């Protein structure tokens, strides 16, 4: 085995130009595969992030949509105790309302939050364009779209009408931008207490919203099923983000598959290229193999020479490819930037994926060397000795 390795290394060294060419070929293939993979993964991650990064992953409400929840604190405790993957839990009382301003009518959604609990989910703190979160009983924060429609500013009074015709008056405490137009237009933020008071829903909430940790966002369906099994959850309904975003998910899925296909074809063409070059090299070296066999090298040793060449080329090409892929990814994030300086696409640089690509390079080139290895094993020395 060591003899085969030594001979393999010497063969590679003595045709240095060819060795470098093959290694670069493998490297380019692997770099492209890494780049595409990281690009698509990064793209998907940022899409997922912007979709659910600051939104509820699972919400709990009464089965009957009109019903409100009174026992919410005990439900929250039960959920918190049930699973560690749930990181933030926040109760909300919400109700639809209208703002009538002359002949202009805006429909809004009053959302009463307990900000201490809601902030980790929605990051409200950092979303204010002007002013601050509502604090007192008659304060409300509005989105920047609604503010524009109604030309309101911080400190202005705003009248709303709830179902049944009741009119309420709030003072604008701040203007937020949640980066989602529909929310900026409709959400009307108050404190939970104030909402319960003003809407005459003392001790009641509409939904419990929660987030799970980053690693578990794709397990929410399984988690929701698990939570539904909890005692006292028989009249409750759980909704998770995946069922609300089926189209997004199937889009991502399709994208993943096509990216995988591209990666597979890149690798296949690399394998074919290496295999054909090594097949030629076994022809070039058939005289040497013949001599070695006349001197008593065993067939297995003779085939190992080519397997080792494949392995070494794979390791060389793999290293180069990972380096090149990283360089490409780095260049892409540095040079392809939006006007505001953020990268166009934040590539996902995952060590595990790079390690996998390296492994693929090694395995693929070892596989590619199987055919020449076989040929080398089968070569009959007499052919070489006889024909000079």
């Amino acid at each position, binding site marked *: 085995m060591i003899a085969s390795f030594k001979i393999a290394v010497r063969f590679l060294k003595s045709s240095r130009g060819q060795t470098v060419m093959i290694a670069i070929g493998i490297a380019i293939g692997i770099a492209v595969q890494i780049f595409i993979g990281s690009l698509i993964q990064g793209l998907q991650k940022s899409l997922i992030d912007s979709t659910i990064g600051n939104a509820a992953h699972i919400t709990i409400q009464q089965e009957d949509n009109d019903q409100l929840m009174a026992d919410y604190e005990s439900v929250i405790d039960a959920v918190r105790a049930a699973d560690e993957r749930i990181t933030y839990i926040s109760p909300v009382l919400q109700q639809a309302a209208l703002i009538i301003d002359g002949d202009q009518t805006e429909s809004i959604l009053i959302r009463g939050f307990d900000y201490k609990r809601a902030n980790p989910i929605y990051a409200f703190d950092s979303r204010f364009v002007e002013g601050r979160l509502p604090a007192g009983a008659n304060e409300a924060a509005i989105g920047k779209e609604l503010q524009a429609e109604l030309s309101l500013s911080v400190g202005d009074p705003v009248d709303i009408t709830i179902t049944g015709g009741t009119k309420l008056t709030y003072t604008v405490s701040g203007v937020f931008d949640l980066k989602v137009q529909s929310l900026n237009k409709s959400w009307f933020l108050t404190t939970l207490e104030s909402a319960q008071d003003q809407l005459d829903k003392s001790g009641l909430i509409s939904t419990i919203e929660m987030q799970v940790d980053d690693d578990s966002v794709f397990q929410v369906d399984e988690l929701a099923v698990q939570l539904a099994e909890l005692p006292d959850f028989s009249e409750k309904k759980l909704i998770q983000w995946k069922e609300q975003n089926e189209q997004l998910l199937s889009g991502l899925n399709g994208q993943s598959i096509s990216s995988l296909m591209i990666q597979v074809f890149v690798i296949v063409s690399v394998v074919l290229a290496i295999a054909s070059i090594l097949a030629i090299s076994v022809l070039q070296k058939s005289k040497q193999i013949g001599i070695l066999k006349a001197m008593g090298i065993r067939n297995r040793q003779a085939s190992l020479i080519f397997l080792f060449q494949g392995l070494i080329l794979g390791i060389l090409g793999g290293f180069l490819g990972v380096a090149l892929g990283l360089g490409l990814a780095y260049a892409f994030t540095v040079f392809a930037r939006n006007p505001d300086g953020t990268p166009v696409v934040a590539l996902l640089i995952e060590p595990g994926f790079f390690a996998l690509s390296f492994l693929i390079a090694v395995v693929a080139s070892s596989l590619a060397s199987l055919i020449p290895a076989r040929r080398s094993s089968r070569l009959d020395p007499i052919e070489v000795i006889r024909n*000079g």
Partner: protein
Amino acid sequence: MDKIIQLDKVSKIYGTSVKTQVLFDIDLSFDAQSFNAIIGQSGSGKSTLMNIMGTLDRPTSGDVTINGTRTDGMKTNELAALRNQTIGFIFQFHYLLPEFTALENVLMPAVIKYNKPSAETVRRAHELMELVGLEKVKNNLSSKMSGGQQQRTAIARALIMNPQIILADEPTGNLDSDTTQTVYGMMRQINDLYRTTFIIITHDRKIAEMTDRIVEIKDGRINLDVTRSTT
């Protein structure tokens, strides 16, 4: 004396559709430690015979016995091991590995067997290089040496495993007459020193006449077999 190589009714037929019989029922044996020549016209079947004796080729019919062991039932790998330890080849054309230096070529049979040659084998390799007069160029790539130097390297390589038999196919074929004499003298010296059996194919009558036994092949048959009487 012990027979180190024995051929019984060895025939060789080349080709499957168009058959050419090259060797006809050859019965031939060689004594251990002897120094022999095989002569014959071009195309008479000398190389074919030698390749069969060296287990590189198999006879169409008949048996080859090396050192008392019949080779017809042996597997490829067993034959490879037998060649590695028992037979040293010097081919008509030099057949060195161009990727390796002269010294590395000489050590190659030992590397094949032991992966790493022992200090003693390495010492022996240096000795052999001295014996064949190549100590100055032993670290040159074999492809960067003259024909005679390559041939002498091949001789050193054939000797590295201290084989019982050396099969040499026109080892002096493309050398000038002075070098031919040197190479011949070297082989004779090795035969004296290590008691190695030599079977040398040659066109050169003068060389043949210096050996102890001459076997002449004609059209695939033994035409003449003379042994010099040792007194």
